[in-house]
């Protein structure tokens, strides 16, 4: 019986092959059916975490895997207040050409990946208090540099035609992690550079002159107190909200015959010729959970021991403990006046220099503020 079945199947397959090779169909489609190609994802857009199954390893084997990881990448350590690994010299020879270029205002430096820690007040030296938001630069390393010719972003901005031609792309990672919890393809991104996989990745468009060697650590001293930065982060997710909360409408009256519409938006359009709702009309909908940039925030203080940056104001997007990206500001009047650390700052072992403050800020180590009597 089984033999018969096998035979028929075999026959069928041979039969099919014959028919398939016999007819050749050349598909010709008309132009209006051609869809634009799908968005091409960047090369680091990969499946990251493995499926969370129990690996069913024995205790010995688990210890062995750990040992092998530590032998290759370094032992766990706390550096700048973050538990990470002692990653040793990643690359021997320079893969990125280093030119000694002087900084000038048209050059674009890299940015940093930071975590928002919350906020607390600081005082200026005339006794005025201001709220400052804290950001910690979390174990940032350069992963990869893609020069301008090769870098082909998936979505090209229409307004920026020189995008591809002039700017290179620097891939920066934050927070080292144990590679056994990540997929092989994701670990492959870091393997050639001898880095551990990073939990968070960020892409920064930079001038080729500001290119950095993969494996270079990025520190909070990349910025200086008094600089202005742009902070890009994901705003707090508030869910589906009405117009009063989402757009700050005033709502309708509480009394005077108003029923069931005290928090509604009211009219949304005209009649007659313009009898439709205009695009962009403010209406209820999902609020928050989108990327927003807080531009031109001033740095008040930097702690070099923990890599923490204090920024004036509490308007930066995101919840406490969320990830933000810090850039040099694009606001023309607040750009660097004097040369910043270019392409980035060097790691300096200095136990004395823990905090650096902006001018005219009250340092907590200073004595009480007293005012001079005018004459």
């Amino acid at each position, binding site marked *: 019986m089984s033999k018969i079945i096998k035979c028929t199947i075999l026959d069928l397959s041979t039969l099919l092959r014959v028919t398939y090779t016999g007819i050749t169909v050349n598909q010709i489609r008309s132009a209006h059916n051609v869809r634009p190609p799908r968005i091409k994802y960047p090369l680091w857009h990969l499946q990251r975490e493995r499926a969370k199954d129990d690996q069913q390893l024995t205790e010995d084997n688990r210890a062995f895997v750990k040992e092998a990881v530590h032998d290759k990448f370094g032992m766990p350590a706390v550096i700048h207040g973050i538990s990470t690994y002692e990653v040793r010299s990643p690359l021997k020879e320079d893969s990125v050409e280093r030119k000694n270029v002087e900084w000038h205002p048209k050059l674009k430096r890299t940015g940093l990946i930071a975590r928002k*820690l919350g906020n*607390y007040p600081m005082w200026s030296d005339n*006794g005025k208090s201001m709220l400052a938001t804290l950001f910690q630069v979390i174990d940032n390393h350069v992963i990869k540099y893609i020069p301008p010719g090769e870098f082909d972003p998936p979505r090209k901005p229409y307004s920026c035609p020189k995008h591809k031609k002039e700017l290179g792309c620097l891939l920066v990672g934050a927070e080292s992690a144990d590679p056994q919890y990540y997929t092989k393809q994701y670990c492959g991104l870091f393997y050639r550079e001898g880095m551990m996989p990073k939990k968070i990745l960020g892409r920064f468009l930079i001038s080729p002159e500001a290119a950095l060697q993969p494996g270079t650590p990025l520190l909070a001293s990349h910025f200086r107190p008094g600089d202005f930065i742009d902070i890009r982060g994901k705003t707090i997710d508030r869910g589906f909200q009405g117009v009063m909360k989402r757009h700050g409408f005033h709502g309708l009256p509480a009394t005077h015959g108003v029923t069931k519409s005290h928090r509604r938006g009211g009219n949304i359009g005209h009649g007659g010729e313009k009898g439709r709702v205009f695009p962009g009309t403010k209406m209820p909908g999902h609020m928050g959970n989108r990327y927003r940039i807080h531009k031109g925030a001033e740095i008040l203080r930097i702690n070099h021991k*923990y890599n923490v940056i204090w920024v004036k104001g509490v308007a930066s997007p995101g919840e406490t403990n969320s990830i933000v990206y810090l850039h040099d500001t694009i606001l023309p009047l607040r750009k660097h006046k004097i040369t910043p650390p270019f392409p980035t700052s060097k790691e300096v072992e200095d136990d004395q220099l823990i905090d650096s403050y902006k001018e005219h800020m009250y340092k907590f180590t200073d004595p009480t503020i007293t005012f001079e009597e005018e004459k």
Partner: protein
Amino acid sequence: MLLRSLKLHIIQCGFAPVVLQVSRTCSNMPLSDTHQSPDNAVSGKQVKSERKLVVPSNSRFIYPEFLPDPKMEWRNSLREKLERLDMIQRRKHIDIPEFYVGSILAVTSSNQHAPNKATRFVGICIQRLGCGLRANITLRNVIKHVGTEIKYQLYDPTIQKIEVLRLEKRLDDELLYLRDAPNEYSTFDENMEAEYLPEGTPVPVNTTLVKLKPRPWRARWERKNMKGLADLELEERFYKRAEELATPWEKYDLMKQYRRTIPEEEQKEIFAEVCSELHEVEVMRKKLKRKKVFVKPTRSS
């Protein structure tokens, strides 16, 4: 480490009678277990070095602002640590004494607008709010028959001096009802002398019952369940309504309490870190005080 302990030891020997400022109030609260341990029988020097590590169990009443905001979404251990470091740095320059709501304080602060660039305000502490560097107090006094209140941030660098003129507690954690009370309840002399409370005595509790002026008030005090208020003399309907709005089940809501407090284990960690630092500050301050020749300050104008 060895050097450090040696240094501390020298300080301890040199200033044997120096006691932690907080140790006075130690006795009025139940002592921590470690304090009562029978180790006291061991030789004197060892006991002393052991003793400095003991964190008084009532630290949370003396330094409530060192406990972080319990709201979980806002917590971050590094931020809390940096904030504590800054607070201790500030405390090195200004002595923030132990006080409670109901104590009478005098705050001297630098002021740009004043002719001699400093002002002093005496008043009863009616509110103590905020944690970390935002901690603030509100002082109230009646000057020339007008009730006056000033809010001070405890860690504001313009504050020169905080004196406790009378250390006592009241029955409530907030005395905002003094705003609706007759003036004599919150009138204090500006040139009041500081009252001395011998070391080791418990903080006295002032059990004055405040008689409010007739309504209207700034809040519906009959609904607030205040212990320090005398009979409010209201109509029956007010009490009835207050009873309707009361939430007696809230005291059984175990998780609500839990979300409002910092657990004991975390508190111990925080105060162990803070108290050792503050102790050093205290020792330094006493040392400086001895060096100075005591001159009685004379008030100008």
